[in-house]
């Protein structure tokens, strides 16, 4: 198939970016979206032009590295997948495809389609962990009884791969879904109770400091999340935060 691509090109963080048009022929429907970009880059390199920089790693939907806004939607038109799981059979011959990086003040563009998502790392570092004794005689985690429903909800929250699609999809560039998933995965387990109040306060404070927008409960993040992280987590984080703040 023949495609008409509009791709965001930006030399570096300090430069101003712009959309650039490319025409790509010979794309097969069983190619992945990232393979299509690989072919484009091979063409660009053979012509002596700068290839389009984009993030990718595992290419099997686990790492959360690939991050593209495709035709106005994070990870493209299909649901519950990352860009690396998107295939060209989702497009038609002659389609125009607009490819952009995540847009958020807290995710500055490094180059072309690559953004700096270290804001997520700093939120995680602010409290997204539990302190456990790793030396001597640690208690076997399996020895602590946990309600099945709680364990499942915690696991579901923990499936967040931190790709940033929630921020990209949100009209306010809010990071509430990511932060709430990271809060929830511990808040639902007995091991997470000890530092629960401190954790949610520190992680929300860091999230606000990074310059993400406010959650207006549109639900766009939940729809676009490749792992289906639920809005329930945001409500849980709000409860946890308000309880922690009032208790002091």
């Amino acid at each position, binding site marked *: 198939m023949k495609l008409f691509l*509009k791709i*965001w090109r930006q030399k570096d963080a300090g430069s101003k*970016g712009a*959309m650039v048009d490319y025409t790509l022929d010979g794309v097969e429907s069983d190619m992945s979206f990232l393979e299509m970009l690989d072919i484009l880059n091979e063409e660009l390199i053979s012509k002596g032009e700068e290839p389009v920089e984009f993030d990718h790693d595992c290419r099997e939907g686990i790492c959360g590295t690939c991050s593209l*806004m495709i*035709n*106005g*939607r994070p990870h493209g*038109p299909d649901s519950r997948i990352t860009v690396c799981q998107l295939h060209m059979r989702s497009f038609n011959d002659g389609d125009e495809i*607009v490819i*952009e990086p995540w*847009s*958020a*003040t*807290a995710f500055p*563009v490094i180059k072309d389609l690559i953004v700096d998502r270290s804001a997520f790392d700093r939120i995680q570092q602010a409290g997204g962990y539990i302190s456990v004794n790793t030396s001597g005689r640690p208690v076997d985690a399996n020895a602590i009884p946990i309600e099945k429903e709680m364990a499942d909800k915690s696991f579901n929250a923990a499936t967040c791969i931190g790709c940033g699609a929630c921020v990209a*999809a949100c*009209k*306010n*560039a*809010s990071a*509430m879904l990511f932060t709430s998933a990271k809060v929830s995965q511990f808040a639902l387990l007995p091991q997470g109770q000890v530092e629960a109040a401190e954790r949610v*306060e520190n992680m*929300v*404070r860091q*999230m*606000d400091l990074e*310059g*993400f*927008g*406010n*959650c*207006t*409960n*549109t*639900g*766009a993040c939940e*729809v*676009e999340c490749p792992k289906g992280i639920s*809005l*329930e987590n*945001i*409500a*849980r*984080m*709000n*409860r*946890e*935060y*308000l309880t922690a*703040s*009032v208790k*002091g």
Partner: protein
Amino acid sequence: MSGLAKSSIARKVVMALSGLFLVVFLTQHFTINITSVLDPETFNTWSHFMGYNPLVQYVLQPILIGGVIIHFIMGFILEIQNKKARSVRYAKFNGGANAPWVSRNMIYTGLVVLAFLGLHFYDFWVHEMAYKYVEFLPENPTRYHAETVEKFAPFWRTIIYIISFGLLSLHLWHGFSSSFQSMGVNNKYSSSIKAFTKIFSVAIPLGFAFIAIYHHLNPIAH
């Protein structure tokens, strides 16, 4: 507690609580207003009570005005922060694919309701203040029904009111149930809250529109 005041979650809770307070007020306002159609005498009695009761005038009225001001100022603050959070706009953004129009345009439906409140305050509150504190006219417990019906005589005012009620409906459609989510309520009752939100956000504005149309079509003969 110091961090709470500055947090994005606290700002959303303020938005939610002030919004829910205004929903309660809206219900009370509608309950009184519908009597202007059903029983003008009751409407006069309640309106006079609301206009001259010291608790309503000097305690509840300032709280109400405060609630409105807090709600729209916080709305503007949140909107400014949200705009700053995305300094470079997407060339193509398909917001309709993942979120309903009403949830993405609360600021615009809210602005229309705010503009309407300006007209509504001018029509009724300013008139009332002038009656009592500028012209120092004597108490008249029977004047309210006739004054209200007269307000809806002009076609343009009735139309503006109806359009505003439509936008109010859209604002409530997302805002009412969303306020529970902001306060951390997302459980087995959430589907019932959403269902009630839909009924409320259609029924109340529709009822207000009915009152406006009824009075426009049934003027008092002089």
